[in-house]
């Protein structure tokens, strides 16, 4: 405090106790192959609080009757270290009881990126008071969720709901059938499209290779998900047929260097469609799990 090197920094010490619990969900055979995860919902049953405890709480802490519930995805790495990612967080009222839903889609996206289907999904659920205060407020303990039981039979058991789309119906079909003309009923597919550079004025005497290339394009329509699903996300656009995987195109061009022309290789990104897929405008783009 009296150091000559640091300006005095005044602060307040806030008590932030929290109750934390780890939920473990087996994911084996939970996500059908060739399916797209639309949403994952964690449902927790908040147990009713005894009247007497509520009254005591109201007397001692009239200002706040809400608690913050936070859900994090826990990753245990090969070296034994672990890290968590915030997935969802929201306030619940201490006096309420019943099912509470949390969107844990991102946690399942992270789990999928691990590509370890036998590993369970680990979710850390923390409860703390809404307002951190100087009093060591322990009222967050009044917010209790029914816990997991090995037998998995208990009423109110935490539930993990996975909503998926079967890509055999709602996805793309790979390459288009060259025999079948593309029309109204064509399902999203990748069609050959050749780009001829030799016949292009601006490429003349400048682009040395390639003379042309197969760029492909995505054509056709996508099956729209059932109403029940779209009604939950009103901002989501219709599913459209788009390039879901692309590759770059290397070219050799004639470049000026030191008063002379020399051939040089340049790689043009996203010029060749590798795969087509069905996606909605506005759909959340899964966060990449950094190594």
């Amino acid at each position, binding site marked *: 405090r009296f150091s000559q090197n640091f300006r005095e920094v005044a602060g307040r010490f806030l008590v932030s106790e929290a109750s934390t619990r780890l939920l473990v969900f087996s994911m084996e055979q939970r996500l059908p192959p060739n399916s797209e995860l639309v949403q994952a919902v964690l449902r927790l049953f908040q147990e009713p609080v005894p009247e007497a405890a509520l009254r005591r709480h109201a007397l001692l802490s009239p200002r706040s009757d809400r608690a913050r519930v936070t859900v994090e995805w826990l990753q245990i790495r090969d070296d034994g270290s672990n890290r968590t990612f915030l997935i969802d967080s929201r306030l619940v009222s201490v006096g309420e009881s019943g099912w509470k839903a949390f969107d844990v889609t991102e946690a399942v996206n992270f789990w999928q990126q691990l590509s370890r289907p036998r590993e369970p999904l680990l979710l850390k659920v923390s409860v703390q008071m809404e307002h951190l205060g100087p009093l060591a407020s322990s009222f967050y303990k009044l917010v209790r969720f029914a816990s997991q039981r090995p037998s998995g039979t208990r009423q109110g058991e935490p539930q993990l709901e996975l909503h998926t789309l079967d890509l055999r119906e709602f996805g793309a079909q790979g390459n288009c059938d060259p025999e079948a003309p593309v029309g109204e009923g064509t399902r999203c597919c990748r069609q050959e*499209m050749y*780009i001829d*550079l030799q016949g*292009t004025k*601006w490429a*003349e*005497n*400048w*682009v*040395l*290779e390639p003379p042309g290339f197969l*760029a492909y*394009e995505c054509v056709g329509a996508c099956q729209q998900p059932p109403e029940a699903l779209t009604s939950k996300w009103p901002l989501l656009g219709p599913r*459209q047929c*788009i*390039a*879901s*995987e*692309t*590759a*770059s*195109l*290397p*070219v*050799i*061009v*004639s*470049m*000026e260097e030191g008063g002379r*022309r*020399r*051939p*040089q*290789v*340049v*790689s*043009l*990104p*996203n*010029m*060749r*469609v*590798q*795969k087509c897929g069905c*996606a*909605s*405008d506005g*759909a959340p*783009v899964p966060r990449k799990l950094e190594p």
Partner: protein
Amino acid sequence: VTEEQILSSLLQQLHLSEVPVLDKSDAEELVTPAHVRAQYMALLRRRHGVRSRGK
């Protein structure tokens, strides 16, 4: 992909503002060295696609 997109990507990658004016003799005299061709073929073979981030 359109020709305009290819041209725009090429100018961007080469940090050029316009297409260089070349005549036929410029191209005819040019021989592509083996190492440039090898680099080109290596890139062409690298078929791994880059997952686009959707729309």
